[in-house]
Each structure stands twice: as structure tokens, then as C-alpha cells.
């Protein structure tokens, strides 16, 4: 299975960055940095659920949990372990 971090990073770059030259790392703040707004977060949640066949409850899909690729990956790993 492809590394989760890289899958998430690729999705975030494709989906949210307007300028492909903008730098994006595993620790770039997505929501607090203004790259992803709360509306657009919905598509990220849907992508994670569809890709990893998991269900992320709203109280866990918080702006804090979705703020970096690393924190998103942690969340996905946690729910994959519960499967």
C-alpha cells in the first residue's frame, strides 16, 4: 500500500494549492494557515473515507486534526487500526 502520508500530501497539493510552485510539507499548517477552509475540509474528509474505507465521526474530523498532513495521517492510522 502506498505511503498514507504521500497519498494525503498529493491530494492536498492537487486539491487545494492554486500555485503548484507553493511549497507544501507534511507539517505545513493547512487550516490555521488559511490553505484549506472549513468548507473545503469536507472534500478532504470524504476523500479519506473513500480511499481508506473508514468512517471519521464529525467530532474527530476537527480543524486541529486536519491541520497538517502528519496529523491527518495519524488520524487515518488510528481509524485503520480499529477496522
Amino acid at each position, binding site marked *: 500500500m502506498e505511503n498514507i502520508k504521500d497519498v494525503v500530501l498529493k491530494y492536498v497539493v492537487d486539491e487545494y494549492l*492554486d500555485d503548484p510552485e507553493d511549497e507544501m510539507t507534511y507539517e505545513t499548517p493547512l487550516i490555521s494557515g*488559511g490553505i484549506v477552509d472549513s*468548507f473545503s475540509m*469536507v472534500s478532504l474528509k470524504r476523500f479519506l473515507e473513500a480511499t481508506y474505507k473508514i468512517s471519521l465521526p464529525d467530532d474527530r474530523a476537527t480543524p486541529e486534526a486536519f491541520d497538517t498532513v502528519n496529523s491527518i495521517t495519524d488520524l487515518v492510522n488510528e481509524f485503520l487500526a480499529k477496522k
Partner: protein
Amino acid sequence: MGYSDKVRGIYQDTLQKIEGAGLFKTERKIFSAQSAEIEVEFPAGAPRKRVINMCANNYLGLSSHPDVVAAAHQGLDTHGYGMSSVRFICGTQDIHKELEQKITEFLGTEDTILFPSCMDANAGVFEAILTEEDVMISDRLVHASIIDGIRLSPAMRDTFKHQNMEHLEQKLIQFADKRVKIVITDGVFSMDGDTARLDEMVALCEKYDALLFVDDSHSSGFIGKTGRGTHEKYNVMGKIDIITTTFGKALGGASGGCVSGRKELVEMCRQKARPYLFSNTIAPVVVAGVLNVLETLSKSTERRDKLETNSAYWRQGLLDAGFVLQPGDTPIVPVMLFNAKLAQDFSRDLYAEGIYAIGFFFPVVPNGAARIRTQISAAHEIHHLDKALEAFIKVGKKYNILGKDKKQIIEMYGM
């Protein structure tokens, strides 16, 4: 009376945090009618100063026009000051129905419903026409009032990259199974001054059977050859399913707004839109003023033509001086400074030179995209624009940004 010291402290702390983050908003007192030149007291207690106004939405210069004022006076005399009612109880006068008809004709739509403001129109429309079986797909830079309206609707929501048609098409394909799909955009984006490419959006919406919603608040009255709006500019009049707009900018500048479009959708708003159902009717004096504005605009394009000439003159002057601008061809001309503090300092120095223009920075615009947003009016004369340009150049030289590109300005001042 539960306003204890503890509760007061909560709000005092919050306000201090807002101030500490540099986000505290203050009002500047103006002692004159809205115009190209206004008399301002800033900061509070300072002597009043006459300055050139470069930040009003008074695009057509009609906010204090004698004809509009006279029509409003007449409306006050014939129809009274207030109606003390919502529309559907006893708040609908002949002139409210007349204005709805005139707006329908002006925008080239099927029907129109008035709202107390365009904020209310945007807040009410999505909840009125959509259910949980539907989806709203909005441009990522739509106005805050649309975002609030989207929040109030039970429909699924998603966004597409600003003005990115490929991304929009992906979303339309992704949501093919939804009962109703609605694509949501501003006509002219208020912070950048760019126009939505409605011809391409109409084509996509027709291909994927989606509705198209356009907020034309920064367009109605002056965009397009006869000022009908962004849909006229892109030759798609009659093809926009919902247009919302305001009477608080070019169309007289007082207040009020509307939803205009397909008759069934307008009727749904009349039956279900909460800001329409539970808020007072527009004051007769405002209705009379807007009717006069529409009559003037339907007879002549003189004012929008002057606005177009002024806007091009201003944009070219700034470009020749070496400023970085957001590209566009509307009266919204953002001068890019990138750094928030620089934008605030620049605005303060402009004021000292007699020019009133405001700096915008995060979170109103993206981080690192701070700017002075200038807005041109048909009320401006060339001598106003020349004086403003002189001041911009003087302040630009002070900060050594003339002729510098984005990268160089960021190197000097940071994001």
C-alpha cells in the same frame, strides 16, 4: 442581570485578543454625504479633514446624486417613512412590486423578490430552494454572506479552486447523482476585482445539468455594455438561474437587495426564505430612490462609460508608476503590498496625503496577499485620480516598492 465580573472578563479577554492580533476594527466618522471627496475625522478627536475617497462602493456616483435624492424625497411624501410590517402581512406597496418588475427587466430574468439586503438574500436563498438531496459547489473566494447562506442549507457542500473550470468540472462529475446541483460564484470578486467567466460556467452547467448562481453585487449597474452585470459582459443573459444583487453599492448605495432568476426559484424564496419572511419590508424611500436609479441607467450608459474610462485611467497610472496590481478590468483595483503591516502603514500615509484607502490583510484576504483595495467611481474626476496617483507614488517611493515585483517586495518586508 447575570452580567457578572466573570462574564464581563470573558468578553474583555476576547476583545483584547482581537486587538492583540491586529484585527480590531474601528469606524471612521464621516461628516459629509458619500462622494468623491468626503470630510473625515480620523483618528477619533482629530481635526476633520477633506480627503479623496478611494474605497467606496459608490461605483456610479449615485449615492448622493440630486435626482436620486429628489426621487427619494418624493417617495417619502407619497408612500411614507416606514411600513411597520414584513412583506406578506401588510408591507407590500405598489412601488415594491414595481421595483421587482423593473429589476426583472433590467437583469433580463423571469422574476425578482426584494430582500432587506443582499446579505439577507444570500443568507436565505439556499435554504429556501435546496434539501439534503442536493449539492452546492462554490468558488473558494465567494463573499462571506454566501458562505453564511451555504451554512444554513441542509444540502451537501463542496468548493472548487478560484476560477478553475477543470476543477469545477471534476466536482460536477463527482456529484452527478445529486437531485439538484448548484454552482455558486460571485460575478465580480470583491477583493481581487476579477470577473467570473460566466460563459464557460454556463456551458459546464448546461452540460452537467446544474443550476448557476451569481452574486452580482459588485457588477449590477456598470459591468457589461449597458451595465446589466457580469452576465451581459459574457453574453449569457437569460442563462443565469439565480442572480443576487444589492442596491447598497452602484444602484444608489442606500440598502436592500434581491434574488432574481427563474420564477419557480423566486417563488420558493417568497414561500420559504426566512430573511424575507421575518424581516421588515424595504423602506419606501429607498424603493423610490432605486426606481429612479434604474430609470436613469435604462436611458443612458453615460455613467458606466465614465466609470470604465476612469478605471482604465487609474489602472494604467498605477502600472506606469510601477505598482504590482491584481489583473482585471473592473473598478476594483487592488494595489498589492503582500505584507500586512506595510498595507496598514501605506494606508495611514495615504491618509496623511489626503487619500482615503484601506489596507486589507489576513484573514480578509489570504496570508501574504495584503493590499490596498482601491475602488473607482463615476463621481471621480480626472483631477481626483491624478492627485491620488501623486500620493500613491510619493508613499510608494517612501517604501521603495515602485518597479519591484512580488518577490522583491516580499524579500524587503516579508509575507
